[in-house]
């Protein structure tokens, strides 16, 4: 066999770099490269390119996988309505960078959104830093808390179970809302990360989720059956969306 006499093709050079070359042509390619500096330079540049790609992107594979990509969560059969709403709000994030407000129903004016989210973020900032008195009624009195808030607010207030997100109910309080009383519930993780749920009557029936950020806090607003909800937390949108989705899911399941 005189493989060495067959000219090396460009395809063979690529196959050589990518370890796809049949073993019997390897020596021929190496001899060719020794005699053809231009081709040798190309091969070197391809290897440099490969190193640069790995240097740039391998770190992504070492990052912790975000909660929204958890296989357990994704393989739960989703409620169709919710998936649409969440997909739409994620799309709104992607397109508008957080301010792309896709409004379903013309009745949801930006001022409803702004009033609600403003009030909720103020309450969030005010109370999440409280060590001794973050709430009026403690989470250990869940039944009493729900009953009291329901009576004062005028709609069925339920404190969702957010254990799936590692969140435990700290408790709640009654606050003035944009157009009447508001319920304010606080949750906490074992590491002290706090989320709050602010709810009050809204002058709109139903909207999709919208995002707002202020300082080190992020908030997701939506309205459903005449009640507006704002879930506030840190600025990690994935985490916030995960928590808001749990809240939404449980309210919907309860038929609120």
């Amino acid at each position, binding site marked *: 066999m005189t493989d060495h006499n067959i000219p090396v093709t*460009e*395809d063979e050079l*690529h*196959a050589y770099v*990518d370890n*796809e070359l049949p073993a019997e042509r390897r020596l021929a390619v190496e001899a060719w490269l020794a005699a053809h500096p231009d081709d040798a330079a*190309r091969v070197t*540049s*391809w290897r440099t*390119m*490969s190193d*640069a*790609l*790995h*240097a*740039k*992107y*391998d*770190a*992504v*594979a*070492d*990052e912790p*996988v*975000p909660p*929204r*990509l958890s*296989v357990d969560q*994704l*393989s739960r059969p989703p409620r169709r309505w919710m998936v649409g709403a969440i997909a739409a709000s*994620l799309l709104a*994030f*992607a*397109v508008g960078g957080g301010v792309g407000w896709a409004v379903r129903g013309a009745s949801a004016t930006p001022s409803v959104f702004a009033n609600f989210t403003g009030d909720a973020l103020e309450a969030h900032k005010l109370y999440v830093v409280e060590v001794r008195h973050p709430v009026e009624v403690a989470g250990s009195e869940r039944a009493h808390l729900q009953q009291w808030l329901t009576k004062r607010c005028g709609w069925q207030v339920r404190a969702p179970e957010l254990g799936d997100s590692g969140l435990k109910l700290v408790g709640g309080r009654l606050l003035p809302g944009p157009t009447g009383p508001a319920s304010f519930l606080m949750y906490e993780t074992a590491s002290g990360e706090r989320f709050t749920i602010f709810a009050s009557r809204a002058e709109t029936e139903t909207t999709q989720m919208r995002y707002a950020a202020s300082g080190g806090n992020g908030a997701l607003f939506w309205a459903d059956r005449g009640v507006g909800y704002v879930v506030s937390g840190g600025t990690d949108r*994935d985490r916030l969306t995960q928590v808001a989705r749990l809240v939404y899911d449980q309210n919907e399941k309860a038929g609120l």
Partner: protein
Amino acid sequence: MSNDFRHSVETMIPALRRYARALARDTDIADDLVQDTLVRALRSEKLFLGGDLRAWLYTILTNLNRNRRRSLARQPTMMELHDTTADASGTEAEGRDISRALATLAEDQRAVLLLVVLEGLSYRDVADIQGVPIGTVMSRLARARAHVRAVIEGERPALRRVK
């Protein structure tokens, strides 16, 4: 759904995220792609008739990205143009160069380059993923490499030549 299948899918998530990040060059879009890929894969276990799970997942992601770009092409959205600098670790000039060079590649060429070089797939697998003959994969790879090389090596001398 079998736990084995689920677990196998799960172990692929880091590599899928890496490929998606390089393909879309935007953290949020990349993870949206991975999420959609996982949802589809998990719902279609029955459609997966053995074979290489890895290649199957890359196929789903590659197709989703193609569809996404097609629907973007119908809308006047310019989101593709902003280069996410907070991307991965690349703060050195080389990292910026490589992602900028990737951005200028045609979609199919970029996918071939990333699948072969970054993800280490065989030419045969990539041909199956893109639904084309191996010869087409090789010509896409050759064009991608020539283009990236021209972008990276062509830009620097041009800057030095300024008088």
